[in-house]
């Protein structure tokens, strides 16, 4: 295969110029040094011969591969693909090659991926994760790989990325429930080992307190993962401990989906017997019965913003650390209504 590869020399011979002239033409940065006629002839010939630059050789010289990694913890979680697509759009447009990595939040897999991509001279990594002290961040720091993160939870404050305005989201949702007349509200939160879940939990408690709604401990349930099954279980626990609630505020659409399913199995209806709210705004929420009231994250824009922060970083590695605040939106659908007077 190597012997069949078209080289600069082949092109040079055909055109009748020196290989270094060909090299100049084929590098956009030096093309202006060559006359337009020669540029045209060289590019034409390169195309006709089927010339492809060898980025391996080029990478070794320039220490850049044009590859940007996008690391997500779980591609099967419907939250992430939209973020990835947003980031890809911006990267592709800027001439970079996005490469995805599905880490499963597995430490060894992350380190192996970083190791491998480092050796391929990856230009930067976008980390979509809510893990506190993500080992990825340290690995990238050690290898001097620029990083953009999706939430402030990760690492210290010296990494550029996004910052989710959970306070805003939770305040909007609590106001919505209160406006409908709910006072007896339960809360379902995510695993507190994740900084993002912890911050969202704190935001919910803050929003409830601000509205003067008391919440006792038996009205709070924590889930260990992000599955509808976890939401079902949380719902059962809440029903046992505190049957008089009229609304359930959840920190994740999956919990709302599970809670509603469980509710129907127990012979109750939503929102007739109880209102339920989601968070994140995954696609399913719009199509399930009832369509779920949720806080929608601008997933595509989040991806695009992270990618443009990465482009900024690559253009000026010592530039200032930007933290873009992401504001979600309240989307009212049919899983919330005024509580029945009992």
């Amino acid at each position, binding site marked *: 295969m190597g012997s069949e590869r078209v080289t600069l020399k082949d092109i040079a011979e055909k055109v009748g110029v020196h290989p270094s002239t060909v090299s100049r033409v084929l590098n956009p940065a030096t093309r202006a040094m060559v006359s337009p006629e020669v540029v045209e002839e060289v590019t034409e010939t390169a195309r006709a011969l089927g010339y492809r630059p060898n980025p391996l050789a080029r990478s070794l010289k320039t220490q850049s591969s044009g590859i940007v990694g996008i690391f997500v913890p779980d591609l099967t979680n419907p939250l992430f693909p939209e973020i990835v697509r947003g980031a890809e759009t911006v990267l592709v447009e800027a001439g970079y090659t996005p490469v*995805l990595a599905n880490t499963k939040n597995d430490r060894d*897999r992350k380190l192996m991926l970083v190791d491998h991509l480092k050796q391929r001279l990856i230009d930067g990594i976008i980390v979509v994760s809510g893990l506190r002290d993500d080992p990825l961040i340290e690995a990238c720091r050690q290898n001097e790989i620029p990083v953009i993160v999706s939430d402030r939870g990760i690492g210290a404050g010296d990494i550029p990325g996004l910052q989710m305005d959970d306070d805003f989201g939770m305040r909007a949702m609590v106001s919505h429930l209160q406006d409908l007349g709910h006072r007896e509200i339960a809360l379902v939160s995510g695993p507190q080992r994740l900084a993002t879940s912890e911050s969202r939990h704190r935001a919910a408690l803050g929003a409830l307190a601000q509205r003067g709604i008391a919440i006792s401990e038996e009205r709070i349930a924590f889930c260990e993962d992000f599955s509808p099954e976890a939401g079902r279980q949380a719902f059962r626990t809440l029903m046992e401990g505190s049957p008089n609630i009229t609304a359930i505020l959840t920190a994740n659409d999956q919990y709302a989906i599970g809670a509603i*399913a469980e509710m129907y199995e127990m012979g109750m209806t939503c929102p007739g017997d109880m209102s339920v709210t989601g968070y994140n705004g995954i696609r399913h929420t719009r199509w399930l019965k009832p369509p779920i009231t949720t806080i929608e994250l601008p997933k595509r824009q989040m991806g695009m913003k992270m990618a443009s922060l990465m482009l900024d970083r690559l253009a000026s590695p010592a530039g200032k650390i930007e933290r873009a605040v992401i504001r979600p939106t309240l989307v009212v659908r049919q899983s919330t209504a005024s509580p029945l007077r009992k």
Partner: protein
Amino acid sequence: MNNRRGHVTLKDIAAVVGVHTSTVSRVLNPSRRTMVSSEIAEKIVAVAEELGYRPNPLAYGLKTNRTGSIGVVVPDIANPVFPETVQGIEDVLIDAGYMPILSNSEHKAEREMHIVENMRAQHVDGLIIASGSPHVAVLMACKEDGIPLVLIHRTWDDPEISAVSYDDSLGARLMIEHLASLGHRDIAYIAGPLDSSGGRDRYFGTKEAAKACNIEIDDRLFAFADANTEEEGERCCRELIFNGKKFTALVTAHDSLAAGCVGVLAENGLSVPEDISLTGYSDTSYAAMLTPALTSIRVPYYEGGAEAARLLIDRLQNPDAPVRRIRISPELVVRQSSARKAPPGEPR
């Protein structure tokens, strides 16, 4: 010992052991290790490990044309079948010491071409392409290069290319037979995009199965979605109801299409499954989330991905390994959205 970016080099190891760099190189290349005495080889390996030496696959790749990475191209990571496929591929590749490099083509031919071009330029050892619509140019380019390639999801009639595909005709037949056994004779169908092999095979499979079951085929009972999305399911469901031809079962080519039908049916006062049996395909996370839970066709996407990775590894380890084309059978999963047709005379 550390130079730029902390790489440990052969020279570093040679200096510690007190041998020439070329001796280290020989030892660290398994095919040439026997040229060096075993005591020295052992010592070199131990020192290399201690210093944290790792070969630079780029430099290594320039010489050997092997980089240990495998390109994986999917058309749409937002479609839940692909993340599952990817997990199957990744788990097998990573276990075998290969590094998957994953890219998303967004169903765009030029983007797929660009990705594959780029991956070939990055000297991936092989490619796994999962896509519904074959882009001949991409396949031809890979064949020309002799780069090991496995297709998954798409069927392509080239006996020289290894492939893993799913028997969508069988899946379609299982569903029609299930509904026929429940007494349904008036069955409407929402087809997926016909330019993808899955959409096409499910559509023709459904028609064939209907014929075999002596079920009347009426154009007014067919609608065609441009994409496997909820929005398209919604649109097609409205179209079928507008057509005015009564049906007691609604079969769709994808769970997302079925999800889009739920609201339209309810709006028209039709309840599932009492008035209409509604079915999906692919058994995605929707199936269990919808009320009532959706009867669907389970396709083992994870296993398919794993199988594709194994085919590729076979080929990498033995270039003379025969081309293999594997077809995986799906299964019917019956849930609450399909039921016996209401007896005649009862209100619809």
